[in-house]
């Protein structure tokens, strides 16, 4: 078969690969500054306010599977994020019997269409972990370098919360937080009794309007479905759409990038090649600057696949560091039954699309047997029933007395069973720890020498193992969960996870916070990017997704991706002005 590679005659100022948090921010900032931008997205167009895409405010019976998970949407029929852990025709492999689950959402806005909107700044210590505990590495930048950008992100995008003056959980410029729900008030009170702080959550949801393009939250609890009012942050709604309005952005959807093209004489990037996923035609885009924002793993895949005589190890990889230091947040969970919440009065407590309170890391790791912290997220309440509702009643309704005060055998059927579902509704809570793992060189992704995806692009092969640090942290999470549950007067569900399953520690990749594969640093021998997210080896290549992280804190990475992408964009603008780029 002969391929005709279609070359676009225009030379763009910038070609950005990926339209998630990092790519959306770069597109918006660079287009606003006047750059002609080609924005390539491997998935389709998406707009949560277009009826073609709306799932918000639909009822469970509008899905024949009542919102259950499908191969097309891992988080269920109503979730905004297309794709998931497995994509048809786009495999990834594993090495040495290790585990890593890779969540991919190929669509405009990428994974910002799914995330929990938890928008936490990294703290001063999070940029210098090696100085604090001797493990891993320090970032080449400090909190003070990033703070002005966090401030700008807060103002541009909006985040609610309440100032708490915590040393390593800096306050944002907050919109008013929503009041806690009933179970959250109980958690707050219980936390106080066991010295665990429970403070207002920090989510990028507009409790007040901040501009004319976006409405404010109407409390349907469904941010994960995408917001018709654009009242929550997703890159597609909040960054890509405004960037298109500048007239400087050419958006190419279903454009799956194969590699970054380079001039073998100058050693500079000249653009990218991509396959149109709908037509299966081959294209190139020429650009003076290439910005990768395809996600930590996808960007490293792109660099590693961009091999040439001049760059035999792949692009920006003379250090051999690309793909290494892959790390995800740790995660472990527990749920509990709250007998005092049986037979609750009904009212609408949907609230915002997430928790109204959370627990930031509160202890000193120097006094513990693991080096890094975690935060706790809380769930519960009278949510909308969907697939899975009522499951496992046979394990519950035999444990609590009926309305007549008498115990009965678990399970059953008929009118009394039907009534049990009513009585138990809204009487459960859940909590999840999300912690920091220590980045390690031997957790990595690399190109599988034998496997390609359906487009013929070599795929990633993962090698990832949790260390004792993370396992001990998960153990601490489980102890804390039980402490809180007991302080609440709740009854933990199931048996406590123990060493047999690493204390419930989720498989790497499951928390979808993976970062670190194209890390920044001052030494080109041990890092791929400089402190402005610019490749040491190729000055017109930048990486503005989580790949640049030196360490993923006990915070969600999105706010830092946004801040660093903005910072890199400012640097690009400055360097172009100075004619260095």
């Amino acid at each position: 078969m002969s391929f005709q590679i279609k070359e676009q005659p225009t030379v763009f100022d910038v070609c950005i690969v990926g339209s998630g948090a990092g790519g959306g921010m770069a597109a918006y900032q660079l287009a606003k500054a006047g750059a002609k931008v080609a924005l390539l997205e491997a998935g389709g167009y998406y707009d949560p306010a277009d009826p073609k895409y709306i799932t918000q405010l639909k009822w469970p019976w509008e899905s024949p599977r009542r919102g259950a998970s499908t191969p097309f949407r891992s988080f269920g029929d109503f979730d905004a994020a297309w794709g998931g852990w497995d994509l048809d025709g786009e495999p990834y492999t594993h090495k040495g019997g290790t585990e890593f689950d890779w969540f991919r959402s190929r669509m405009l806005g990428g994974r910002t269409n799914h995330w929990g909107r938890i928008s936490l700044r990294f703290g001063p210590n999070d940029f210098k972990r090696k100085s604090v505990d001797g493990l891993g590495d320090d970032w080449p930048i400090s909190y003070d370098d990033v703070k002005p950008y966090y401030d700008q992100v807060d103002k541009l995008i909006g985040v609610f919360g309440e100032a708490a003056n915590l040393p390593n959980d800096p306050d944002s410029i907050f919109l008013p937080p929503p009041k806690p729900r009933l179970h959250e008030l109980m958690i707050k009170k219980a936390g106080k009794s066991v010295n665990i702080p429970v403070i207002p959550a920090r989510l990028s949801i507009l409790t007040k309007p901040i501009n004319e393009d976006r409405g404010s939250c109407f409390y349907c609890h469904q941010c994960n479905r995408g917001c018709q009012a654009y009242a929550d942050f997703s890159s597609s709604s909040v960054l890509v759409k405004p960037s298109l309005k500048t007239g400087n952005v050419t958006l190419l959807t279903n454009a799956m990038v194969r590699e970054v093209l380079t001039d073998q004489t100058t050693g500079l990037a000249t653009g990218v090649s991509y396959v149109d996923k709908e037509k299966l035609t081959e294209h190139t885009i020429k650009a003076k600057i290439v910005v990768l924002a395809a996600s930590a793993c996808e960007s490293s895949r792109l660099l590693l696949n961009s091999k040439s005589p001049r760059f035999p190890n792949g692009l920006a990889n003379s250090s051999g560091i690309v793909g290494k230091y892959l790390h995800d947040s740790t995660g472990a969970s527990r749920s509990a039954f709250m007998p005092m919440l049986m037979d609750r009065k009904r009212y609408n407590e949907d609230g915002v699309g997430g928790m109204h309170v959370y627990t930031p890391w509160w202890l000193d790791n120097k006094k513990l047997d693991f080096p890094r912290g975690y935060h706790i997220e809380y769930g519960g309440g009278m949510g909308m029933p969907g697939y899975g509702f009522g499951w496992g009643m046979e394990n519950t309704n035999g444990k609590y007395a009926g309305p007549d005060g008498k115990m009965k055998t678990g399970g059953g059927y008929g009118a009394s069973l039907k009534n049990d579902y009513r009585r138990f509704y809204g009487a459960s809570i859940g909590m999840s720890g999300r912690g920091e793992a220590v980045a390690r060189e031997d957790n990595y992704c690399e190109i599988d020498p034998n496997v390609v995806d359906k487009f013929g692009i070599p795929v990633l092969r993962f090698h990832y193992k949790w260390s004792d640090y993370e396992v001990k942290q998960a153990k601490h999470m489980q102890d804390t969960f039980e402490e809180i549950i007991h302080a609440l007067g709740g009854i933990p569900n199931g048996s406590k996870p123990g060493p047999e399953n690493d204390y419930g520690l989720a498989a790497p990749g499951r928390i979808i916070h993976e970062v670190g594969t194209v890390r920044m640093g001052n030494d080109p021998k041990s890092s791929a990017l400089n402190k402005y997210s610019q490749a040491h080896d190729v000055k017109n290549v930048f990486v503005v997704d989580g790949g640049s992280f030196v360490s993923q804190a006990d915070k969600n990475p999105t706010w830092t991706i946004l801040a660093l992408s903005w910072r890199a964009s400012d640097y690009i603008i400055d360097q172009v002005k100075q004619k260095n780029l």
Partner: protein
Amino acid sequence: MKRRESLKALTLSSFGIAAVNPQELLSEQRDLQKAMAAEEVEIPGGRTKEEAVYDAKLMSETFFTPAELTTLTVLSDIIIPADEKSGSASQSGVPQFIEFMVKDQPRWQTPFRGGLRWLDLESQKRFGKIFTKCTSKEQLQIVDDIAYPSTAKPEMSQGVAFFNTMRNFTATGFFSSEIGIKDIGYMGNTPNQWDGVPADVLKQYGLSYD
């Protein structure tokens, strides 16, 4: 996206060059096939084309026999009968929900088919007729033996496992239906203003916002 913007995206990805080479022709043929396939399946709001095609395919297939569906109907109404507050499982569409789910998640096909068969065999053994031909008293005799996992006889374990599955699907199907949502008293999924827990509820639990 504004029409102008989408056209811009379109012209760049298609380039508008009518080159006649095999790959180009192939891709045009694909476009045509796609357009034709899309015409056959209506894509509801909030669905991708792949999802619409997949769901339509599942809807066009039948898994349960009419007899199996009748048994599912009887069983689901034993689990969630109509009462003074709301209708029954079958009135809310539980059997149709299960029919869809076993096609959507085929791992449930054998547990359901085999479980229904187990029930009919047990019923044959005891009463010389299949489950749906039994009187409701006879039906409940069997159900009583498989509805309580902690006290059921060991030889009933397969029946218990089936009934647990049946109970789970019945509860999920019923309470995620229009009838069931009303019954359970879920009051959200509508634009509103959240101003905290109602005062009488705060008082009931001895909590406050101060």
